[in-house]
């Protein structure tokens, strides 16, 4: 190791230790357990991978919210997708994480092993490319994700229309983050003392989009980047706000997030999609939380073109993913975690997805819970403090 590198390491460890001791002090000042929620899968993974949780005091807990696209996708969508994949003329193009999520009729991975044509892509444009190269096949792109992937789906649909690619459709299940955050806050059985807002989504929708949450629900919000230091910085900021009784929107990711966001991406999204009701795994139906394909682009809607009718949802018995992604419990509280449900044999969606809370927990934090069961930290359920009724109205558009 070079001297310069050693110095750098020393500095980052010292800086982190300093932040951790500040957090300790703030936790003391607050004097009660607090629970913050991150909404982005990348935050979930990076916090676990860099060991941020191990540096936090026991009374401050960071839980995962509904920020992993795979985890919040309703099972009926998976079923529809797998059914579609089994039809002979169809090619399913999907992001890799969706491959292993099982619905009632198995997963895309199983369907593929039985002969379905399922291809993993890294972007919507790659899916469109498959359609261009195989005009004799019907290519269906499984479009999931939040405001981060929706503009790319819109771009693919616009390109397909421009070029007259007729054999490309999208089975869209895009979602908007804000309505889900508001639904969580409106639910009195969930305790959230502050949001670590999703950095990538904020890049698109802009920081001011989160203002409504702060104003209507008096819940602190910090927009944070993705390194360990940035995540810790965001948590520290939230703790400071709680300690001082403030509820502000703080943008700690100014290098990427502007007030207004990415207007080009917003325009693409607006051109092709319109807000519509959507069904979230764990959260149920939330008004205006989805993005429906506008009538003008119905030709590219796979639900329409291939007459797909989603069935009913049925959660795997015993699975507590729904509680995990709403902050009601942590993965190790689930009786299946690490026993019946592991990344190799996942039961619930949070264990399937590489950004899922359960998988991140299993991969990077399992030792905290295997070493000595009596030593467990963070296992007391954090319940809402004496019935604080959140403001009812105020959903920002």
């Amino acid at each position, binding site marked *: *190791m070079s001297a310069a*590198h050693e110095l750098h*390491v020393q500095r*980052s*460890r010292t800086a*982190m*230790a300093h932040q951790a001791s500040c957090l300790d002090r703030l936790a003391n000042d607050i004097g009660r357990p607090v629970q913050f929620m991150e909404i982005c899968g990348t935050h979930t*993974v990076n916090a*676990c*991978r*860099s*060991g*941020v*949780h*191990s*540096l936090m005091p026991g009374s401050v807990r960071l839980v995962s919210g509904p920020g992993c696209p795979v985890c919040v996708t309703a099972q009926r969508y998976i079923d529809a997708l797998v059914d579609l994949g089994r039809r002979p003329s169809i090619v399913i193009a999907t992001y*890799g994480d969706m*491959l292993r999520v099982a619905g009632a009729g198995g997963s895309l991975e199983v369907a593929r092993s039985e002969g379905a044509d399922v291809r*993993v892509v*890294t972007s919507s444009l790659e899916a469109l490319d498959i359609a261009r190269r195989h005009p004799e096949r019907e290519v269906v792109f499984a479009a999931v994700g939040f405001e981060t992937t929706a503009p790319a789906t819109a771009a693919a649909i616009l390109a397909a229309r421009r070029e007259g690619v007729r054999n490309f459709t999208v089975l869209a299940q895009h979602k908007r983050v804000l309505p889900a955050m508001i639904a969580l806050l409106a639910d009195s059985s969930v305790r959230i003392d502050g949001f670590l807002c999703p950095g990538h989504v904020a890049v698109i929708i802009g920081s001011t989009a989160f203002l409504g949450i702060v104003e209507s629900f008096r819940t602190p919000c910090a927009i944070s980047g993705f390194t*360990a*230091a940035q995540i*810790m910085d965001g948590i520290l900021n939230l703790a400071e706000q709680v300690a001082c009784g403030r509820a502000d929107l703080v943008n700690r990711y100014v290098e990427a997030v502007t007030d207004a966001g990415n207007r080009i991406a917003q325009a693409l999204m607006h051109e092709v999609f319109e807000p519509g009701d959507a069904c979230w795994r764990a959260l149920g139906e939330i008004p205006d939380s989805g993005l429906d394909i506008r009538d003008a682009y119905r030709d590219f809607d796979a639900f329409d073109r291939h007459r797909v009718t989603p069935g009913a949802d049925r959660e795997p018995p015993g699975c507590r993913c729904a509680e995990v992604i709403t902050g009601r419990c942590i993965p190790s509280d689930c009786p299946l975690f690490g026993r019946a449900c592991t*990344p*190799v044999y996942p039961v619930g969606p949070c264990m399937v997805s*590489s950004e899922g809370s359960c998988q991140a927990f*299993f*991969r*990077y*934090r*399992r*030792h905290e819970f*295997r*070493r000595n069961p009596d030593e467990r930290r963070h296992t007391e359920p954090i319940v809402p403090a004496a019935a604080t009724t959140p403001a009812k109205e105020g959903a920002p558009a």
Partner: protein
Amino acid sequence: MKPVTPVLSNGSGWERTSVPHRRRVVMAHGGGGQLTAELIEGIIRPRLSNPLLDTLDDAAVFDVPAGRMAFTTDSYVVQPLFFPGGDIGRLAVCGTVNDLAVCGATPRYLSVGLILEEGLELDVLRRVVDSMAEAAAEAGVRIVTGDTKVVARGQADRLYVQSSGVGILRPDADLGVHRIVPGDRVLVSGTVADHGLAVMLQRENAFGMESGLRSDVAPLAGLVSELLDACANDVVFLRDATRGGLAGVLADLADITGYRLTIDETCIPIRPGTAYAAEMLGLDPLDVANEGKFVAVVRAGAADAALRALRSHPLGSLASEIGSVGGTRDGMCEMVTVVGGRRVIQKPYGEELPRIC
């Protein structure tokens, strides 16, 4: 348009090379007849030539010294066949050599089986066999027997290689997990994750990323013998960190010995470009395959000598001590991260990664 019939008779070079079966593998190349002989005599034997191979007998026959031998086998299906820093030929020789070397054996003789897809360009085969010859010379081994089969188009992906090898165990080496005790130090012989990421980025340039990454594929027999010459008695365990990466080896060590391993992330050597590529692809570099790195567990007192020996060899110049074996009996591998947090290292699960070896 009139169909073009290949002209065989006039003997000039142009017509000869324009005959399809002279440029590409055809089914008859695997038929055991004249074309098979042409393939072996024209391409394979001249490149790998040595007295044992040249007899072209059904089996290679050779003397061995008294003692113990190591025997290993592996198959190679990497896609693409050529990647920055190596190709399937070099990989097949190095992979087998390294499996022998980390058992404490001096690799001696290799076999090579080639499965060719109909239509494979013979030039590709030439390049691959050239590269095998070069790697074998580098490793000090001979390819003494082999086999070639051709399968119909679509039944294989261009070219697969199967190789086995034997080596003579060094009498002074005693390697095995059973010898690991608390206090032992864990070393890695150089930078991690270079092979897997170089191959992934090269594959059809799937991610549209330009990178200067190169695979680390290399024969490790020389580096291992350097280490064992310096402190054979104090080296208790060696394993090359191929599929499953460094994480796979460390998690296995903790699991099998039952001891707690503690690793310091800042001591794990990784090239900045590799770390960046892993970040972009959402991969943990510790999970990514290497083809020229091994993990060594040595007695604490010999750690410095072992590091000196490794660093004296060009393939081990960035060797580093990354952690130690502790007395806690929970079979966990814990890592102190760059920022001072703690997390566990586990075996990767075999995710959606392209074929990398």
